């Protein structure tokens, strides 16, 4: 028989005052109603009879008092929770390690909602079994350990700590929890072991290490248990049916950026064949579905293709019911086209500026327009060297040296470092050099071959008729240019590796060539030109064609890099996510799709650290109402998805066999005592009613 006090000392004192109060009330003079009788002679003799010195008579008279006291006594006994306990802890100290990883969400235990609920119940029972001298601590662990309650014999605090424990979506790493327990059971020396002057900082305390888990963690073999006596209480069944998505990503087709391809891996961790429908949702709209049928242990890949130019949040769902639903859904996102910074150097080019200001272009482009004189400034030089801009457009002008970024030359050629004839002084000098080249080319083809390493004009200016278009190149997508009228243009010759995008009757009219990791695009004719009087003249009608803004957009997307969109990264639950945003932004909003976004302030380097990533899902980063970034949080952990509870785990250097999860439950008697209290009260009332009647 053991007792568990449910009241604190002050409460017990209060309860102790109750019987005293009852007795005092009995001693209090009862206010009796006076009644005149002819004589108290016979009454006195009657009362005298009752006063006979018999214990029974006395007891009979105070039976109500006795019954009341008995009821209080029984209530006090019930509050002491008498009971029979089964086994006792050998060491009187125990460390409860509670697995709070995602796999503990599995609903495969018969009496409880989940493995975690069962583990909590079992720990609760253990706490109830504790003696007053027993000490216990509670440590939860997923991919990190948390000491919810250090060693204490206060069952109330332990129960409170247990109530605070919550299951997470995180993967499992037991080592931290073992170290936490180890630190208390196996005190370390303050310095080297061999140091004779050093003593242990504390006495070693033996303790039972009770591990409540399904065993789904990396074996902690590199660990010395020392004074800890491990006991592994396996939670869950050894075979559990589970289809899991272990990988899911989405990428844009490199050649066709609007095409999105999603790939997923589905594994059957169960012991029987399983099939399911896999559905792909984009922003809660069903896009596609497929069926998978897998043998036990088999895995398969699933792919989907869809068209979307915008940023998208994808959700892949296994339409099947199994005990662990967390891995039946996976999330992926495609980052939006990034905003590009474009520096336009021109004396005035309205069609180009308009092209950069269309609705779609404005979304992805921040343009800065400067006059050619800007090229001489230090600011430009710093800017060009630092590569701040994603694209610099030189309209009828050319810099001395090429900037460390992509460039687009309109009616001008990039400077040739080795040719020595680069157009350094604008259109005029270029024109002159071009004429020379043309003359050379006509007269001596060898010279032309010798200079073929750099950019140069292949023909003098003249009317141009476009004859071919490389439609496979991203820059040329959706373009129709045969109807263009070009008054004056020159064929281009470029460095090795140059691609001809538009061919004219005189030669290549639009070429692109790689340069140290950057790309240079050269257009052989002006959009706007100046006549002899210095008046603005349209050199082509392209700006009036539909293909003009499309071309500008293509330039922004694929030359400036706005379309360098890739699959948004995926993180594990609980992982700290570092999001890089523009440092100029003062505030961004971050949150899971479908929930309220939280405001966060980026750090000095434009990095935002997101720690609230416990839940799986797609997360959005917004700046000024526009989507800035996307990332996804997924479990994607084969250990968590492989739900079978292990029969043994490796803890330290030994394998610990699972013991039955059930603890010999304590037989409590307080209910019987409570019934006794009720019976006493009923008897007391009946007796009172009988006497008064």
């Amino acid at each position, binding site marked *: 028989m053991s007792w568990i006090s449910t009241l604190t000392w002050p409460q017990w004192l209060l309860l102790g005052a109750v019987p005293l109060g009852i007795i005092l009330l009995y001693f209090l003079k009862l206010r009796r109603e006076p009644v005149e009788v002819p004589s108290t002679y016979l*009454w006195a003799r009657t*009362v005298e009879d009752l006063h006979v010195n018999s214990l029974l008579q006395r007891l009979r008279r105070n039976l109500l008092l006795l019954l009341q006291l008995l009821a209080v006594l029984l209530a006090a006994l019930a509050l002491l929770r008498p009971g029979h306990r089964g086994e006792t802890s050998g060491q009187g100290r125990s460390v409860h390690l509670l697995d709070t990883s995602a796999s503990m969400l599995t609903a495969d235990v018969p009496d409880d909602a989940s493995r975690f609920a069962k583990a909590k119940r079992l720990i609760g029972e253990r706490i109830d079994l504790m003696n007053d001298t027993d000490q216990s601590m509670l440590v939860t662990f997923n991919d990190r350990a948390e000491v919810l309650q250090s060693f204490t014999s206060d069952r109330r605090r332990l129960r409170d700590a247990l109530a605070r424990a919550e299951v997470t979506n995180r993967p499992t790493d037991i080592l931290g929890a073992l170290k936490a327990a180890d630190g208390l059971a196996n005190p370390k020396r303050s310095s080297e072991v061999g140091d004779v002057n050093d003593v242990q900082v504390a006495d070693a305390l033996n303790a039972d290490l009770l591990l409540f888990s399904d065993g789904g963690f990396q074996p902690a073999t590199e660990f010395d248990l020392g004074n800890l006596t491990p006991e592994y209480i396996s939670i869950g069944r050894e075979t559990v049916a589970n289809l899991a998505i272990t990988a899911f990503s989405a990428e844009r087709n490199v050649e066709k950026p609007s095409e999105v391809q999603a790939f997923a891996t589905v594994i059957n961790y169960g012991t029987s064949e399983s099939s399911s429908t896999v559905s792909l949702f984009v922003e809660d709209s069903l896009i596609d579905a497929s069926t998978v049928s897998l043998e036990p242990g088999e895995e398969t890949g699933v792919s989907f293709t869809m068209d979307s130019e915008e940023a998208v949040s994808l959700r892949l769902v296994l339409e099947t019911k199994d005990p662990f639903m967390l891995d039946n859904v996976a999330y992926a996102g495609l980052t939006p086209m990034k905003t590009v910074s474009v520096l336009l150097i021109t004396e005035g080019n309205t069609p180009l500026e308009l092209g950069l200001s269309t609705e779609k272009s404005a979304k992805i482009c921040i343009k800065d327009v400067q006059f050619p004189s800007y090229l001489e400034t230090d600011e430009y030089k710093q800017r060009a060297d630092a590569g701040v801009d994603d694209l610099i457009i030189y309209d009828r002008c050319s810099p001395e040296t090429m900037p460390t970024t992509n460039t687009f030359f309109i009616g001008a050629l990039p400077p040739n470092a080795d040719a020595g004839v680069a157009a350094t002084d604008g259109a005029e000098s270029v024109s002159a050099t071009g004429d020379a080249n043309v003359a050379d080319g006509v007269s001596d083809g060898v010279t032309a071959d010798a200079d073929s390493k750099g950019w140069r004009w292949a023909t003098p200016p003249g009317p141009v008729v476009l004859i071919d278009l490389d439609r496979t190149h991203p820059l040329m997508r959706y373009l129709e240019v045969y109807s263009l009228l070009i008054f004056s243009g020159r064929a281009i010759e470029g460095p090795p590796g140059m691609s001809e995008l538009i061919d004219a009757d005189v030669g290549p009219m639009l070429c692109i060539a790689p340069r140290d990791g950057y790309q240079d695009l050269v257009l052989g004719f002006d959009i706007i030109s100046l006549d002899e009087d210095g008046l603005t003249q349209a050199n082509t009608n392209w700006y009036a064609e539909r293909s003009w803004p499309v071309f500008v957009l293509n330039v922004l997307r694929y030359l400036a890099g706005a379309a360098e969109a890739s699959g948004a990264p995926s993180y594990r639950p609980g992982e700290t996510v570092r999001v890089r945003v523009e440092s100029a932004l003062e505030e961004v909003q971050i949150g899971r799709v479908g929930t309220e976004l939280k405001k966060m302030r980026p750090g000095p380097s434009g990095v935002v650290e997101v720690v609230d990533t416990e839940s799986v899902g797609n997360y959005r980063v917004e700046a000024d109402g526009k989507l800035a970034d996307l990332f996804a949080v997924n479990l994607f952990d084969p250990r968590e998805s492989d739900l079978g509870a292990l029969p043994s785990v490796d803890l330290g250097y030994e394998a610990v066999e699972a013991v039955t999860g059930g603890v010999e439950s304590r037989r409590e008697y307080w209910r019987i005592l409570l019934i006794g209290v009720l019976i006493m009260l009923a008897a007391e009332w009946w007796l009172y009613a009988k006497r008064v009647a």
Partner: protein
Amino acid sequence: MEFFVTIWRMSTSIPPDETIPAKPAAKSRVGVPLLSPALLGRLERLELVSRKVFRGRLKGERVSRRKGQSVEFADFRNYVPGDDLRLIDWNLYARLDQLFLKLFQEEEDLHFYALIDASESMNFGDPKKLFVAKQLAASLGYVGLCRADRISVAALGPEGRRAPVLRGRASLHKMLAYLDSFGSGHNVSLHDGVRDFAMRNSGSGVVVLLTDMMDKQGYESALRMLVGRQMDVFVMHILSPEEIDPPLRGDRRLIDVEDGDNAEVTINAYVIDQYKETVKNFIASIKSFCSKRSIVYVPVRTDTPVETIVTKYLRERGVVR
């Protein structure tokens, strides 16, 4: 008839011009007559019984120990000089030639005493025990008056000293006036009251003690005193139904109306049972005491009509015939 009307008027104080019943009641206290005309009529046919033969004072209707002049022969005795020659049986002298005197029973009156316990405890019940006691005393007294007995109806205690000794039917109004004149209030114990009575009345006779016996000093000494005076003692134990089965429940403080004594009792069914048992034992002890001393014990419940008590119970127990 006129006599009764006078008595009734005296006792009820009804104005003379009001309608008078055919046979008026003898006395009333609170509107209820002590003796109703019907009862008076029945009482006239009754006679007090004495189990003993006493010597009276005056000529009466009772056989006396004394030899005297009556029609009932008693004995013969030898003539001694000086005897009344009228008593000599001449027939015997003629036959035996010796002188004998022929003796006859003397008939004298009977002394009847009704002692009423007028303690405060008698002022209880509905009707009050004292009222019932007065009714019974008046009834028995009237029976005695009708038979030319010497009647003394007296309260125990100081009120008893002014009790008139009555004789003859005409004294009924005096008796009723006396009964009407006293109430409860003199808490005299049975012992003191009886001793006072015994010291004032040396003669013997029939004595009826009307009491509730509720005397904390006990009733035994009082009864012994009466028995010791060679009296024929009758005890009429008057109890109200409320005393036999009290309608009290709950936590009560019982106050003795005589001495103000308090008894705190929690009255429940169990206590009531105990009380009834006590009453039963009390009555049984009185009965036993009386039977051992040739005292006739008559229990009287106040809810029983006086007519029934006098004409049935007292007859059965030989108090009247």
